[in-house]
């Protein structure tokens, strides 16, 4: 008698891993050889990988599956293009150019029209497609989950492995579902949502997990918002965050230069629409949030989970029962130069920064500009805006957003990672306090001794004009037209 075997319902994450499994490396298929569709390389995590290939005499398996972008170490000064020799003087940028030339990889260097932050450039070119596996030498590669792709960060040894073999030795993660329902209140953004998630589950809450974000709040979210959410999933430990692709994704891809067109697109769309978790697929952990309970968030400490709604006060470590957490809170509050009980909205800032792969897309700049229109940056605040890509920069200039920033007193810069990790000259001084639209508030992240408060771009704008952390909801939009 024939036995009809139905395969067990699978999550979207499991389907992506299964579809890319070349072979199992153990009996339970926990560890697999995983095929990688595409990668993006930067100048600071890739050099030793190329050196390794060269020393072993190994070619790059699929050079056309890689794009190289200069973003981490470069200047964002408006006049940087006038110094054509700057890149050749920089050892990382010049070695990057040599490697790309020798191994046949397309390079967006400092002077390329499409230069920008890797995780902003890849989507805007249409290089991130639903169903792909994309691994890259940057932890925020999780961004690509917004497209229903599995994106994750890897170290330099794995970059070398991937370039040489088009595969990675990959350990399968467990499945976590984060379901968010309802409409986000006015003034509350995707950034606040993901910060609320991280604050709820902790900086290691998703270690060993891939997250699937689902629910009506996520479904209603723009691509920019989804990218912000997936981008910061790594800040709670997730090495992969996916959202089932839908019409929002397909519409976004429809005018992107390198996305499939014509007959290829019809076949692709059919496949893309099938990319979702099966009904009844089991998740090892499920977290639920109500969007209406989320308020504008800010971090007060030195880990992304040390955060609260802007209406909160700095917590009192003495009230923490867990001794490790009590010590960590004390240390963080001390580093940040704050005191228990201080209202978050009373914290005076020295700097405002809008930028990074988390929040420097066009929608982010528009949101900040809405607050800045007709207002000026407080006299004691130095404010910087670094568009996510040269393309975003041009678009903002066309839309008149650039002028709103400059009239308000922000410096309008060229693209790059800039003050998110301060590998270039955009550094905060010791003791300086920065309202930042970035992703990490670690000790020393924006400069040795610098103090970072993470928040949404609109909240950074509100802090910039008032001179202190500020509830954007109390400010309202700037001048109406």
């Amino acid at each position, binding site marked *: 008698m024939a036995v009809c075997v139905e395969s067990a319902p699978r999550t979207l994450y499991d389907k992506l891993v299964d579809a890319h499994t070349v*072979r199992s490396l153990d009996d339970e298929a926990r560890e697999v*050889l995983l095929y990688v569709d595409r990668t993006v390389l930067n100048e600071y995590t890739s050099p030793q990988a190329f050196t390794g290939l060269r020393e072993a005499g190994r070619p790059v398996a699929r050079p056309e599956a890689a794009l190289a972008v200069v973003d981490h170490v470069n200047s964002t000064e408006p006049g940087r293009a006038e110094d054509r020799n700057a890149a050749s003087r920089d050892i*990382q940028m010049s070695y990057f150019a040599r490697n790309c030339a020798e191994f046949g990889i397309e390079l967006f260097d400092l002077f390329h029209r499409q230069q920008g932050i890797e995780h902003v450039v890849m989507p805007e070119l249409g290089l991130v497609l639903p169903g792909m596996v994309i691994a890259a030498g940057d932890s925020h590669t999780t961004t690509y989950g917004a497209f229903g792709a599995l994106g994750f960060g890897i*170290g330099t040894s794995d970059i070398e492995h991937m370039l040489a073999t088009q595969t990675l030795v990959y350990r399968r993660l467990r499945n976590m579902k984060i379901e968010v329902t309802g409409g986000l209140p006015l003034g509350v953004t995707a950034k606040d949502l993901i910060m609320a998630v991280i604050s709820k589950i902790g*900086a290691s809450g998703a270690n060993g997990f891939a997250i699937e974000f689902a629910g009506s709040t996520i479904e209603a979210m723009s691509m920019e918002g989804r990218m912000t959410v997936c981008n910061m999933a790594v800040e709670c*430990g997730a090495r992969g965050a996916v959202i089932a692709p839908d019409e929002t994704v397909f519409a976004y891809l429809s005018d992107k230069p390198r996305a499939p067109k014509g007959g290829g697109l019809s076949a692709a769309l059919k496949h893309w629409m099938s990319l979702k978790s099966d009904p009844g697929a089991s998740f090892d952990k499920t977290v639920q949030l109500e969007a209406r309970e989320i308020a504008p968030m800010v971090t007060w400490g030195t880990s992304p989970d040390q955060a609260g709604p802007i209406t909160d006060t700095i917590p009192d470590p003495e009230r923490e029962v867990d001794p490790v957490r009590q010590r960590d809170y004390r240390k963080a509050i001390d580093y940040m130069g704050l005191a228990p009980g201080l209202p978050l909205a009373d914290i005076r800032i020295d700097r405002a920064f809008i930028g990074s792969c988390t929040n420097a897309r066009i929608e982010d700049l528009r949101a900040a500009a809405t607050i800045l229109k007709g207002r000026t940056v407080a006299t004691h605040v130095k404010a910087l805006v670094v568009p996510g890509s040269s393309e975003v920069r041009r678009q903002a200039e066309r839309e008149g957003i650039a002028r709103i920033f400059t009239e308000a007193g922000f410096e309008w810069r060229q693209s790059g990672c800039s003050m998110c990790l301060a*590998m270039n000259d955009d550094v905060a001084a010791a003791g300086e306090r920065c309202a930042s639209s970035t992703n990490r508030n670690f000790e020393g992240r924006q400069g040795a001794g610098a103090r970072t408060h993470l928040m949404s771009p609109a909240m950074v704008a509100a802090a910039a004009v008032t001179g202190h952390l500020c509830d954007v909801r109390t400010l309202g939009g700037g001048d109406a037209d």
Partner: protein
Amino acid sequence: MPTEPFICRTAHIAALPAANIDTDVIMPKVFLKGVDRKGLEAGVFHDLRFDEQGSPLPDFVLNRTPWDKSEFLVAGPNFGCGSSREHAVWGLLQLGIRAIFTESFAGIFFDNCARNGLLAVELNADKIAFLTSLAEAGERVSVDLESQNISAPQGEITFHIDERRRRMLMNGLDAIGMTLEWREDIAAFQDAYLTTYPWLAPQ
């Protein structure tokens, strides 16, 4: 690149009990400007180890006797979170660190350890507390990867890592070389894959 094998080592163990020690703290950005793996020893925990003049800070555990000779770390949970920078692992190895024990590692850091022959072991809270007590007592401990056992005069504990990783650590194998032995499997997979999803094939 083949790594240095790890079989059994005996050395001091230093405790870094804070949670969420991130790779920005392990290897600050000023040490990320090179194109090779050299000279990263100086960068490890730089802002915790040295003052602004570059003098060692006497209170930091790795500057104190006997922990300045440590080959092992017992650390707070979520060790190595944040940036993917493998420089953190290269620097720790250059400083002489050969094994790290914690309740949990961040994923990318954990993989970076495996690729470079740095033994990374997750243990439960009781075992971490035991190792922390040994560290604070200034004991030397023996870490044996053959028997997956950590011993000291006060007692011993066992640990378990997956067999493939254990074999690679003990033999110092070249991961890329191993994968390339499956190159025919990869080529066959790729042909089938690009046929199934033709819009992904080179145009």
